[in-house]
């Protein structure tokens, strides 16, 4: 990642495409997530029900994908907003670092929670 001339050297087209692909996945995942969590508010929120879901290998795979793609989509989005600003070099490096470090930290937190059951 070249920060000084990132506008000209990297078009960001791969990020653009992946943002749309992950976005399309998240549309379907989010609809399912909301139906599950809110159609019957009492279902699905307790400890036993959550652990039962995470103990199922397919649910686990779904949640790992959801966490990964959701975080990537969100943080890539934040970075693409920041790229619109005329950032000084050190500001760009710092913000990019904050995005990467916090993203990995929360990804690890989410994944370890899902993998524990």
């Amino acid at each position, binding site marked *: 990642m070249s920060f000084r*001339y990132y*506008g*000209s050297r990297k078009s960001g087209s791969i990020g653009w495409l992946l943002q*749309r692909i992950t*976005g*399309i996945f*998240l*549309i379907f995942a*989010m609809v399912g997530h*909301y139906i599950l969590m*809110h*159609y019957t*508010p009492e279902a699905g*929120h*307790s*400890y*036993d029900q*959550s*652990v039962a879901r*995470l103990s199922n290998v397919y649910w686990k795979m779904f949640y790992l994908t959801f*966490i990964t793609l*959701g*975080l990537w989509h*969100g*943080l890539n*989005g*934040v970075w693409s*907003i920041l790229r*619109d*600003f*005329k950032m000084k070099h050190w500001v760009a490096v710092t913000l990019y670092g904050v995005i990467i470090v*916090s993203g990995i930290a*929360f990804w690890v*937190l*989410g994944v*370890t*929670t899902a993998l*524990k*059951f």
Partner: protein
Amino acid sequence: MKLKKTNEGYFKLVASYRKEVGGWAWIIHRISGIALTAYLYVHIYALSTLTKGKEAFDAEMALFQTPIFKLLEWILFAFVLAHTLNGIRIVLVDFGKGAYYHKKAFAYLTAIGVIAFLVMGYFIFSKEINYLFAGLI
């Protein structure tokens, strides 16, 4: 390439554009996107209580069932709706022929969003609504 310095700030520049629906959709998409990313961090952190056992998790879930959190959840749904529905519009513009009908799409998707928001309000507050109108029905 050396970027030329201008005296105009980013926000001033964006605010100065005459905006049609696409411009407003762009702004709403960015604001809701930042809010949802921030919420995703909170969400992952909140659910990590699962590893602390049944009592800690169920106590937390009971907190989220209080009216103030229900209201916050409803507002969150507005952000999710705005971002999801406008995301559909963006995909149609970028991958389909959405450029020809994106204003119409914005109008229809806004209508769908308002309806979905109200329906979700009923689901979230069904207990309170039933309690309030129990005497009338």
